[in-house]
């Protein structure tokens, strides 16, 4: 890239683990477009996904799911199913009575419903049989009597009707979680403003739609060891859930994460089917497998929360924000999942792009009778980012400012603290905006294209890994072990999970870089709780940064272990030893050296088996208030996007021919993977912008309208746009070789950029996604009639907000703690 900085990055690094010792120019592997370590297996069909497993004497499992959105279970009679030839076991809720859930604060799921079902598709019973056909036939023989209860089809309904309660725990009625955080006096901010604007937005729920249906297999050895294979992004959390629910020692359970056929967050929870096959393996003493149908994958869901948002912002004439108040209401579905974290995330990252001196966030998550929502690519942040970026587009118009200029003038400075105490390190948003503005010829096109054509801009930021673990503990988030073979090969063991993002390759490239060997000489073993040290999982864009830093530490320790022995042999001081090009040599006379394998052999002869470990724990976050655990990250990535649209005023159909995207990735590790992640994010953002939605028949039993790949619209080759990608590098001291995330952030600016472009094209505001033709058409009709040229939500319901947690922003003093604890709360809290 022509714009690459020439300066070395070494001097930017602080001491400690995971810091590179070589500048950019010395890198041989990092920054190149290396063929991924699993590429050949994937193009030959050799990769073994969970459903590709087959074990001798294997049984098949099927789940019976609820036909009711909300009902009490009166009685289950499985006697006929048990009597069917070929059926080996039937399970119901009472066989697995211990609750589980991904977050410690919401252990509200049962592998099979215990007394109540909470959505159409909630698992109720399970069958193990000698074939899938027999298992399916047995499901029809299980008689379940239900007492239907009033069902809640959406969040507003759940907020306004506390009875009957969906769960016996909640912050208020059917409101699962209530958050009220205040960072400074926003009303004072509004009084200082030249313009104060309020807007309402709605982001419809959508789902991950991985091409691979979830599958899991289990095997129980008579010696008392359980092995579970699963298409999971989080084997460590599955390991914990299995130990808890099955009441088995974790030391006797092995969880193997198979390569995931797409995850996007949808395989991050421990699931009913994983626990059920494990239990059935124990009960039957035979290996067993379950593969969900596509319809069932829609019921697993854990996708984007439908989110209603209200935002009020005060700005000066030059666009400087004086205060912001943001409210969100999330439709959580039937269970907690990651929802408490998702709710915090809808209010966390507004502050890391443009300075907000005073900020207030109120968030609520309602339980409803639909499949549970959870983390989908961008986890809780695409919704508020859509709201914020469209809102700012309107602000810019009112101020008579170019929206790109407004953003460029007001960027959060690098190495600063935000009002909510997030520590921003490197910040490349300005360069991202400049790239897409130049590339798209923004100034020539904005407000100047013919009617029906438009161009829109939006920006975003995302975390590079959550600063805190999901369950409180003081241990590392990522661990790596290295084994150096006397033949010169190196094996990297790490608990990370390959879901297509290229995490296995990152490990090989980083270790190859540090040890100066061919990445092809490195074997990678990942995602196996028996073999690999814990990595928390493939979520929150944490893997490259955290496993990368752990891998650097392990590889540097291997280098430190080997170097003295090479130095002794070469008769030079150890500090002059360099590892590169498969050799270990004297930096002052490069021809004087050894092969890497020979160096390992010298070390092994002197020290015994050559192996090292490395680990990574994120830096402590600055905030000390309740709720400060969501939002902190070792580094924030930044993206800017320009979308070009064609809108047909006669039909409301929106086509997106081209998108320009610039992403601040800190530092590229694998160039091809970075491009793939950015393009894939743009694709998924485009789908969310234009067509993807989890739609239910609210008046007809809250049944999912479209649990199929045909009816759930996602972009095909015919809808996908051209993408011009700019990779912006500004190495971050916390990242491995300076790398930040790139797998989620570039999704975020796409929906608001498209919405802003639609406005530029035809002058109507579509304040909700997906931006379907009927919404555009309705807004155009309103415009024609002289009404407000807009489609979007019109009210935000009354919510019983708690007393706010008041935390002074850094510039008002304090140390990140709340000045007064929440008092006078009227609603009971349960763990």
């Amino acid at each position: 890239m022509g714009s690459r900085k020439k300066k070395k990055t070494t001097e930017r690094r602080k001491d400690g683990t995971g810091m590179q010792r070589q500048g950019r120019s010395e890198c041989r592997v990092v920054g190149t477009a290396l063929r991924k370590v699993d590429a050949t297996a994937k193009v030959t069909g050799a990769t073994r996904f969970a459903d590709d497993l087959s074990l001798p004497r294997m049984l098949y499992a099927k789940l019976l799911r609820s036909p009711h959105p909300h009902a009490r279970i009166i009685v289950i009679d499985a006697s006929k199913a048990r009597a069917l030839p070929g059926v080996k076991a039937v399970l119901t809720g009472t066989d697995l009575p211990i609750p589980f859930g991904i977050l410690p604060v919401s252990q509200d799921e049962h592998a099979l419903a215990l007394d109540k079902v909470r959505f159409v598709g909630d698992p109720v019973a399970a069958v193990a049989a000698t074939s899938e056909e027999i298992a399916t036939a047995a499901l029809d023989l299980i008689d379940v009597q239900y007492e239907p209860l009033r069902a809640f089809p959406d969040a507003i309904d759940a907020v306004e009707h506390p009875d009957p309660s969906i769960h016996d725990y909640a912050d208020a009625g059917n409101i699962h979680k209530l958050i009220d955080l205040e960072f400074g006096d926003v009303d004072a901010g509004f009084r200082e403003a030249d313009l104060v604007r309020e807007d309402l937005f709605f982001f419809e729920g959508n789902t991950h739609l991985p091409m691979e249906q979830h599958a899991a297999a289990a095997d129980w050895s008579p010696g008392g060891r359980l092995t579970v294979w699963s298409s999971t992004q989080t084997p460590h959390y599955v390991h914990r859930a299995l130990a808890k629910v099955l009441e088995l020692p974790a030391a006797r359970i092995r969880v193997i994460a198979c390569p995931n056929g797409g995850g996007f967050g949808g395989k991050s929870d421990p699931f009913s089917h994983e626990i059920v096959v494990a239990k059935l393996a124990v009960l039957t003493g035979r290996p067993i497998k379950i593969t969900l149908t596509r319809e069932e994958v829609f019921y697993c869901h854990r996708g984007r929360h439908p989110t209603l948002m209200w935002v009020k912002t005060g700005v000066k004439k030059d666009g400087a924000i004086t205060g912001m108040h943001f409210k969100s209401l999330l439709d959580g579905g039937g269970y907690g999942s990651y929802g408490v974290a998702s709710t915090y995330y809808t209010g966390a990252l507004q502050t890391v792009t443009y300075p907000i001196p005073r900020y207030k966030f109120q968030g609520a998550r309602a339980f409803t009778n639909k499949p549970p929502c959870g983390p989908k690519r961008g986890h809780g942040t695409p919704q508020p980012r859509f709201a914020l970026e469209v809102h700012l587009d309107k602000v810019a118009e009112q101020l008579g400012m170019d929206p790109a200029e407004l953003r460029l003038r007001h960027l959060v400075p690098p190495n600063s603290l935000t009002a909510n105490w997030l520590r921003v390190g490197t910040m490349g948003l300005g360069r991202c905006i400049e790239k897409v503005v130049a590339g798209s010829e923004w100034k020539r096109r904005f407000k100047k294209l013919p009617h029906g054509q438009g161009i829109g801009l939006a920006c975003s930021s995302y975390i590079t890994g959550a600063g805190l673990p999901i369950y409180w503990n003081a241990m590392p988030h990522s661990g790596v072990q290295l084994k150096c073979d006397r033949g010169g090969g190196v094996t990297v063991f790490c608990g990370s999970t390959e879901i297509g993002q290229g995490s296995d390759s990152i490990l090989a490239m980083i270790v190859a870089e540090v040890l100066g060997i061919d990445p092809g000489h490195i074997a990678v073993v990942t995602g196996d709780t028996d073999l690999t040290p814990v990595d928390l999982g493939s979520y929150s864009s944490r893997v490259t940064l955290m496993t990368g830093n752990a891998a650097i530490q392990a590889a540097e320790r291997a280098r430190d272990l080997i170097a003295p022995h090479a130095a002794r042999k070469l008769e030079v001081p150890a500090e002059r030893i360099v590892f590169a090009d498969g050799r270990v040599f004297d930096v002052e006379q490069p021809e004087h050296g050894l092969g890497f394998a020979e160096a390992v052999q010298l070390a092994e002869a002197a020290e015994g088996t050559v192996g090292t470990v490395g680990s990574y724990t994120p830096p402590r976050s600055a905030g000390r208030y309740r709720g400060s655990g969501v939002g902190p990250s070792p580094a924030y990535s930044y993206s800017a996007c320009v979308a070009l649209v064609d809108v047909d005023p006669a039909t409301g159909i929106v086509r997106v021919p081209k998108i320009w995207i610039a992403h601040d990735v800190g530092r590229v590790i694998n160039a091809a993977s970075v491009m793939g992640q950015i393009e894939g994010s743009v694709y998924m953002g485009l789908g969310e912008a234009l067509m993807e939605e989890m739609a239910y028949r609210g008046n007809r039993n809250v049944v999912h309208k479209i649990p199929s790949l045909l009816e759930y619209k996602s972009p095909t080759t015919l809808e996908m746009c051209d993408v011009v990608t700019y990779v912006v590098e500004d190495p971050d001291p916390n990242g491995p070789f300076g790398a930040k995330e790139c797998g989620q952030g570039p999704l975020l600016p796409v929906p608001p950029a498209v919405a802003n472009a639609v406005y530029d094209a035809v002058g109507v505001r579509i304040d909700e996604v997906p931006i379907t033709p009927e919404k555009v058409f309705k807004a155009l009709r309103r415009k024609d009639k002289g009404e407000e040229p807009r489609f979007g939500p019109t009210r935000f319901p009354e919510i019983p907000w708690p007393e706010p947690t008041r935390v002074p922003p850094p510039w008002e003093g304090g140390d990140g703690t709340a000045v007064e604890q929440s008092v006078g709360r009227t609603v009971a809290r349960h763990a």
Partner: protein
Amino acid sequence: MPDAKAKIALDVNGEPIEVAFAPHKTLLEVLREDLGLTGTKHGCELGECGTCTVLIDGTPVLSCLVLGLACAGRRVKTVEGMADGGVLHPLQEAFAELGAAQCGYCTPAFLLTADALLAETPRPAREQIKEALAGNLCRCTGYLKIYEAVELAAARMRGENAKPARETLYGQP
């Protein structure tokens, strides 16, 4: 009760074989369960996603919608039949090189669909590639690297010494 098995003879990846299976089974099931060819994947088993695409007599078909019995005497090609011995097919090579396979789950189907396209159209325009691949869903790549890989492989299959463009792998300057 399981059905009595039916037996057919067909050509799979250039080898004549005989296989016996329950007669209601789809080609997808026969390939994966009776022949152990798990390279062919499934995403819906309803003919909606294209993930189970294989070639029958050179034409892409959805193996989840074809009965195994209907394949007697036919020539079936799966992803396992693409490489020539230990040498990858140029499409496989290009997919690996450009990162056109991310999770890899839809990849076998894209490879075979593209294989059929290039057999008929050695120099496809971008629009022809999009048209040919419109029935295959991919959630990882946004299809762009797939188009570029098909174009790269097509050029190499025409005997050109093609290399990926720098912006394909590194982005625009």
